[in-house]
Each structure stands twice: as C-alpha cells, then as structure tokens.
C-alpha cells in the first residue's frame, strides 16, 4: 500500500498545507481549535514518518519511496524525492521534534499562537523536503524556503534582542547558501542534470573540486556551525523562543551535516582528502575551544548553544577522519567514524532539544535564563530535576545514553587514525561533563536560592509527557542503538565503497 502512496510528498505537504490551514482556517481567534489542529497534523506527520520507517527496506542502500515528476522542464529541474538510510532517520527526527514543539509550546505563546504553530508546521514540512529532495535545485528551494519561517519565529516571538539575532541568522545562512547555489548550478551543467546522484558519478579535476569544496564548505559550515562561522548560533539560540531553539538545535544544524554527507564527501572526495587536515583541525577547535567557552557562560541557553557547537564538532570530525582511515585501508573504522557521526547527529537532536526544553520550562516559570538566578531547584521541582539530570548526563556522554554511542564510535575511529586526535577529542568528554554538570549543580542543587525558586511548581502533565518521550528515546538509543545503526549501515557502506573513491578518473566508481 505504501508503494502507491506518495509518502514523501505527504511528509512534506501535509504539514505545509496543514500550517496554511491553521493560519487561515482557524486563525488567531480560535486558539483552542488551532492548537488541536496543529497537534493533529503534527501527530499525523510523525505517524507517516514512522510508517515509512517500518516499511523501509534497511538491507539495501539505494533510494526508496522514489517520486520523480517533471517540474521545470526548460531548465531540467525535476520534482524528485527519495530517501536512503541516512535521510530517513532525519525525517523521522524532524517530524518528532515538530510534534514535541507543538506540545511543549501549547499554552506558552501569549500572542498570535496560531501563527506560531503554523510557522512550525510549515517549517517542519520544508525541512522534510530538504532531507527528501534528490534534485539539487529542489533541495536548494527547500533549504532556503525553511529559513523564512525560522526568521519570523525568532523575530516575532523572540527575546529582547531578537531583531539583531534573526537578521544575523538569516544573512549568515543566506550568505553561505548562495555559494552553494553557484556550485549546484555548475555541477548541474556538467552533469546535464540536477539529480544529486548523477553528480556523485562525475569526474572532476582537483582544481575544480577545491573550488566546489569551498562553496560547499561555506554553505554547510555556517549551518553546522563550524568554528569560525559559528557566531550566529549563540545569538539566535538565546533570542529564539523555546520551540525555535529546539528546532534550531535539533534539526537545522543537522541540515549542515546532512549536506556534508550528501554533497561534499561524495562529490568532491579528492578535495576533501586534501583539506581533511584543516577540517579535522577546525573540528578539534570546535570540540576543545568551544567546550572551554561553554564553561564560561552565565546564560543557560548560551551554554547549551556552545555545547551544541562542540558536539557538532564531533560530527565533522567523524566525517573527515574517515578519509585518513580509508587511506590506511581500514574501511571498517571509516564506516564506524561516519556512522558514529550520523548517530551523534540524531542523538544530539534528542539531547539538545531536550535541554532547550528544560531551560524553556525554567524560563516559563522564572523568566530568567541566568544561572545565577537559580539554585536548589531540586527542592521544588524534583521530577524536573530527574529529567534534567538525565539529559545533562547524556550531553556529557554518559554510557547508557544515546550521547555516548556516537561520541564513542567517533573516538574509536579516530584512535585508529591518530592517537593525538583521539586524545584531544576524548578530552571533550571531560569538558562536556564539566560545563554541563557544573551548570546542573548550580541550577538544581544547593539551598533554595530565592523566594521565586521556592515557589516553583513541578512539571505539568504536558511537560511531563514531552520530557518522558525524549528521556525514553535517549535511553533506548543509548542501550540499543542497533535500529539506527542498521538502517544506516548499507547507505554508509555504499557511500564509502562507491562515493568516497577518487573522482579524478572514472576508475573505481560504481553506479
């Protein structure tokens, strides 16, 4: 039955049109109706993505649920969708986080809540489009279009400095993506098609590869974000409303790493090898230096934002360490590195999303994000403290949580490449533990700091549900990451066998 259904189109357009329905159908005047409608649509989208997951044949690497329709014939752009084992988990993550955001912001948005829900639904659909598109221009359309709802979300419902933050966010990411557009047009011209997988099979000279590499790097490094183009992220996170921060951390950063896997590694592998050392260095700087920066933060949201950058450093490290490993003929370790990076991508979605939700729960009650304003929260909010503890531990990479799996795989892989890289990246486990747990200690433990903390109510049912869902996921994937690894395995193997081979000559490429 699923073969007949354009499941990916539904995953994109159901939330988009659902968002429009919330925007114009129920509108601001009927708050309850628009909330219910948003909930139903988000839940239906999640259901569809889980259904797609259950029907996905994880023993094969190639694209599934393929749709291919003509769209703009004159420039040969097609409406082409399809997912492999790398994209599908990200779609599921997007649908899940959209639903969680809808539930978590249920009554928290004081003005224009219908517009708020509509923006999140539409953004969810567009982000699904980014992961599902197999036509480069279609990918770019979704990639840019989803900036607009986020721009509005931060700008309308954000904090006091929201205008600066949202303009910075939009202009930074737009600046990155215009070069991506040039690269895509060039590749489309050479490949005579905008099919991303046709681009994977192209012979490109090293000089051109390097130029393309930089175009991709600017686009994806801004999104990930990598040092030194990370400065928009702390601003955007601090000013964004809770839901915006959750989506920003959980999904939007992943679009950058997805871009690395989908475009950079397979299309310009030779340039990537040439630049791998620089990239590893930048990743290590992100891991170590940003970890130290996080230690010094006074604002909880900023702290988690910096910790996101540090954790995304692991992802890029995993990607680029694999080239060194392939050169050493240790393919298994390379697979491990990339898989670790991808698992880290998903798990960071849960953990950072959950941490931002925790901060949002505190902020809703206290209207402050300063660590100094808190202390002794455990006395009044014991249940909250329990969940917060779990997510803080997961952020620190405690074994048994999903945060451990990805980081462990990446460190294991880098150990086979270079002891010092592994050591430095291992250091971060200590740093992450230091800044997360220190924040946790200052906020949660100790005497009740002030009267406001003394009067905090514990979690409401709605918050409880959200926390519990994420906690279960963090633990399940921590103890049993196999489903995630299994679904990715064939795609990652294919990536290494067929795509990470030299593109300087047609030898070794397999179609």
């Amino acid at each position, binding site marked *: 039955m699923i073969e007949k259904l354009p499941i990916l189109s539904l995953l994109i357009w159901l939330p988009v049109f659902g968002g429009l329905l919330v925007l114009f159908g129920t509108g601001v005047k009927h708050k309850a109706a628009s909330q219910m409608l948003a909930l139903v649509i988000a839940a239906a989208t999640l259901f569809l993505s889980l259904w797609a997951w259950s029907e996905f044949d994880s023993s094969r690497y190639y694209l599934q649920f393929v749709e291919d329709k003509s*769209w*703009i*014939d*004159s*420039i040969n752009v097609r409406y082409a969708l399809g997912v492999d084992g790398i994209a599908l988990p990200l779609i599921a993550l997007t649908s899940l986080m959209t639903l969680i955001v809808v539930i978590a912001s249920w009554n928290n948005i004081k003005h224009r809540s219908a*517009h708020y829900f509509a923006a999140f639904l539409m953004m969810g659909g567009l982000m699904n489009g980014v992961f599902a598109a197999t036509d480069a*221009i279609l990918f*770019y*359309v979704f990639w*840019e*279009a989803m*900036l*607009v709802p986020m*721009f*509005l979300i931060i*700008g*309308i419902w954000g904090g006091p400095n*929201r*205008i600066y933050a*949202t*303009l910075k966010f*939009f*202009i930074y990411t*737009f*600046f990155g993506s*215009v*070069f991506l*557009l*040039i690269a895509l*047009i*060039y590749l*489309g*011209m050479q490949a005579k098609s905008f099919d991303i997988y046709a681009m994977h099979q192209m012979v490109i000279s090293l000089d051109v590869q390097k130029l393309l590499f930089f175009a991709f790097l600017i686009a994806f490094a801004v999104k990930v974000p990598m040092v030194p183009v990370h400065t928009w992220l702390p601003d955007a996170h601090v000013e964004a409303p809770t839901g915006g921060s959750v989506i920003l951390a959980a999904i939007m950063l992943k679009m950058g790493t997805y871009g690395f896997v989908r475009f950079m590694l397979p299309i310009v592998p030779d340039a990537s090898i040439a630049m791998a050392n620089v990239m590893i260095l930048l990743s290590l700087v992100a891991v170590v230096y940003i970890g130290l920066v996080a230690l010094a933060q006074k604002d909880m949201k900023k702290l988690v934002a910096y910790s996101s950058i540090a954790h995304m450093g692991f992802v890029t490290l995993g990607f680029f360490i694999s080239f060194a490993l392939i050169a050493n003929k240790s393919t298994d370790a390379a697979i491990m590195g990339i898989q670790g990076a991808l698992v880290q991508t998903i798990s960071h979605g849960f953990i950072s999303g959950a941490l931002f939700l925790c901060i949002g729960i505190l902020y809703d009650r206290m209207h402050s994000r300063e660590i100094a304003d808190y202390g002794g929260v455990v006395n009044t909010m014991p249940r909250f403290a329990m969940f917060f503890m779990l997510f803080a531990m997961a952020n620190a990479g405690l074994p048994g949580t999903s945060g451990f799996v990805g980081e462990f795989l990446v460190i294991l892989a880098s150990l086979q490449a270079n002891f010092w890289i592994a050591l430095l990246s291992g250091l971060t486990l200590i740093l992450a533990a230091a800044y997360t747990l220190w924040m946790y200690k200052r906020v949660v433990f100790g005497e009740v700091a002030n009267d406001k903390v003394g009067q905090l109510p514990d979690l409401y049912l709605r918050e409880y549900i959200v926390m519990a869902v994420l906690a279960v996921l963090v633990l399940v994937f921590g103890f049993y990451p196999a489903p995630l690894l299994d679904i990715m395995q064939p795609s990652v193997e294919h990536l290494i066998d067929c795509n990470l081979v030299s593109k300087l000559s047609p030898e070794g490429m397999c179609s």
Partner: protein
Amino acid sequence: MTDSINFSLISSEIFLLSAICIIMIVDLFQRDKERNLTFTLTLLTLVALFIFGVNQLDTVRTIIFYGHWVNDQLAVILKLAIYATTIIALLYARPFISHRNLMRGEYYLLTLFSVLGMMIMVSANSFLVVYLGLELLSLSLYALVALQRDSKQASESAVKYFVMGGLASGFLLYGISLIYGATGSILISEVANHYAENESGLIGQFGLVFIVIGLAFKFGAVPFHMWLPDIYHGAPSSITAFISSVPKIAAFGMTMRLLMEAFSTFAADWAAMVMIIALLSVAFGNIVAVVQDNLKRLLAYSAIAHIGYFLLGIVTGTEAGYSASMYYIIVYALMTVAGFGIVIFMSGEEKEYQNITDLRGMGRYHPWYGLMFSIVMVSMAGIPPFLGFWPKLEIFRQLIINGFVFEAVVAIAFSVVGLFYYLKVIKEMWFAEAADSPVITTSRSMKIAISMNCLLLLVIGLMPDSLYQYCLSAFQLLG
C-alpha cells in the same frame, strides 16, 4: 514580403490609436469626477489588446513596411507583458489619483500613448522607428510625471526627467547617426548585413558606444543612474509604479533590436561594456539601498540593482541568455509594480506614508497585507520558492554555462547585501513595536488588486515553467 505594406500585422497599434482618439473625445463630454467611463474604456482597450495578443502567439517572424517593422514572437510576448503590467498599474492608480486631483482624462490617455510608444519600440526594425517609439513613450512619461502641477516635488522630477531623458535620447540619436554614416542604412537588418560582411571600423564602434550609453541611461544603470532615485521618489507614487515597471520591458525589446539584431557581430565589444555597467549597478544599487529609509527610494535603488542582474543575462551574448534576461525583466516588472503598490496602498487621502517605519504594525494589525508585502520583499530578494528566485537562478545558470563564473559569484554575493534591506522592510512590518495600527484607507479594488499581484508572485513561483517557456519561445529555443 519585406516590401509589402501589411496593415493586418499592425492592427493592434491601429486599434489602440483609434481607441485613444475615441476615449479622448468621450472624456471631453464627461461630467463624472471619477472618470468611470474613461477608466472602463481604457481597461477594456487594454484587455482587448491582451486577448488579441494571445491569439497572435506563435507568430512567424515577418518584416514589413520596407523593412521598418517586424512582427515576431519576441514582440508579441513583450507586448503581452506590457499590457498586463499596465493594467495592474492602472488598477493601483485609481484610488490614489482620485484623492490627489489627478483624476483627469489625461492620466489614462497619456498612459495609453506611452503603451503605444512601447509597442512601436518592441516591433521596430529600423533605428528611426525605434527612436519614434522611444520618444512617444518618453514624452508621455514626462507629461505624466508633471501631471501633479501643484506639487513642487513632482514638477522638479518632471524637469529632471525631461532633461535627463533628452540627454539620453541625444546620445542614442548621435550613435544612430554615426552608424548611419558608417553603413548607409537605418534598417536594422541591413546594418546587421553590413557588419556581417565588413569590418566594424572606428566610426561603427564609436556609434555603438553612444548607443550603449543611451540604453544604459534609459535603464538607469550605473554610472547613468543619477536621475532614477530622484524621479522615482518625486513622481506621484502611482506614476512611479508605472514608469518603474512597464517601460523597462519595452527597453528590453529595444535593447534586443539594437544590440542583438543590429550589432550581433559586435557582441564581444558591447558585452564587455554591458558587463561593467551590470556589475557596477548590482554593487551600487544594493549597497546604497541599504541606507534608505524611504520606501520609494529603497525600491528605486533596488531597481538599479535588478537592472544590473538583468543586464548580466544579455552579457552572455547567447539566445538562452537573452531569454533569461527577458524572464528577469518580466518578473521584475511584476515585482516592482507590486512594490510601489505597497506605497500606493499605504497612502492616505491627505498624506503619503512612504517611510519604512510607516509600515510598523502591519504584521500585527493587518496580518494579511503584512504577509502579502513580505512576499514581495522575499521575492525581490530572490528567496525560493517565490517568483524572484527563478530568473535569478536562470541568469546565474547562463553566466556559468558561458564561463562567467567569477562574475556570477560577485553578483550573487551582492544579493546577500540586497537581502538585508528587504529584510529591513519585513522587520518593520513584523518585529518592530507599534504603538497603534497603521491606517488603511485605500479602496477595496486596490486591496484585491494588490493581493492578486502578490499571490501571483507565489503561485507562478511554485510553477515557474510556463512563463519561462514563453520567454524561450521568443528566441526559438523550444525544442
């Protein structure tokens, strides 16, 4: 065939001219302050022309009147775009002019005369006819700008426009005379034949330089742009909406007739000049627009930048590049008319609200129009899936195909600067704190017209193919 006199192929022009005469007489006997009959007849004329033009699609290229007139797919499609944009501009103008003592028959008649001039421009096959059409257009526009007699600003603009326009026409005419001296003909096809067989020669190149300058003046491309912001700002907003959009389409037609058809063998020469002009326009327009607080001036500088992008397509010197430019200019006209539509929409009965800050609170108190205006802005910024993205994509694609990668990178980098000021407008509408709601006094027809125009930017943006197919067909590029 060339020597034949075939009135059936200029029936649109004859029809329009007769309609103008009839409307002029009808208008004389009208007591109605609102000029309803004149307005209706004007619109009906344009709609009839549009329907007639649609029937002429897929026409075969025919040259008539001893080589002075050409009828081809390019002319038909450009004329269709001219009618459509004029209709939109007239719909916007109605509430605006009725409050400002501009509701006179001349308004409509001059608009129709300028449409006639533009039709002549895009169908001309000789330098003389090009010039004839251009002057008919320009004189009508000078008069239109000056129509608000009691406004100092408008009168100043009209004089400026007249002097600058005269200068530009002078350049063009001087160039034409040099070319005539070098080739002995004013027919475009014969000039092209002459240069296909002979060397260009110093006089020919000299003439070409003057023609390019004349065209650049008309487009308002840097460094011949100084008149443009002042006139767009000073003219009554409804007239700015018209002169900023429709004549650019005709100017594109004129550029094609002159540069592509007459001087195709010089392509390398003029392409180098146009490239400099284009990149300067992109850079200058985008940077200066950033510091504008007045929406009309902001749109004027953004128009300079858009003209730069549009010229980049011509630089490629290929037919695919020209069709990309054509796509760009039609889309530009649709977006710009909507952009100045915002200014008209905001103006009250007495006062005009032209500052960006006057838009404060739109998102909060009039979310629908806030949304519509945001669509215009993101479309101009070139964010997909809105319409403005596709011609930009096509221009960059043609640049890269023809090896202008560096130029494409420079131009696209400036579009990031462009994004900033478009976002500034959205920022004022949605994010800035507003004490009270902006007053909207405009008529219902205006509300419907601007909503349709903005939705068009989204709907065509989702299905951009058909419009582009027409642009390709104008250059016989459909397989």
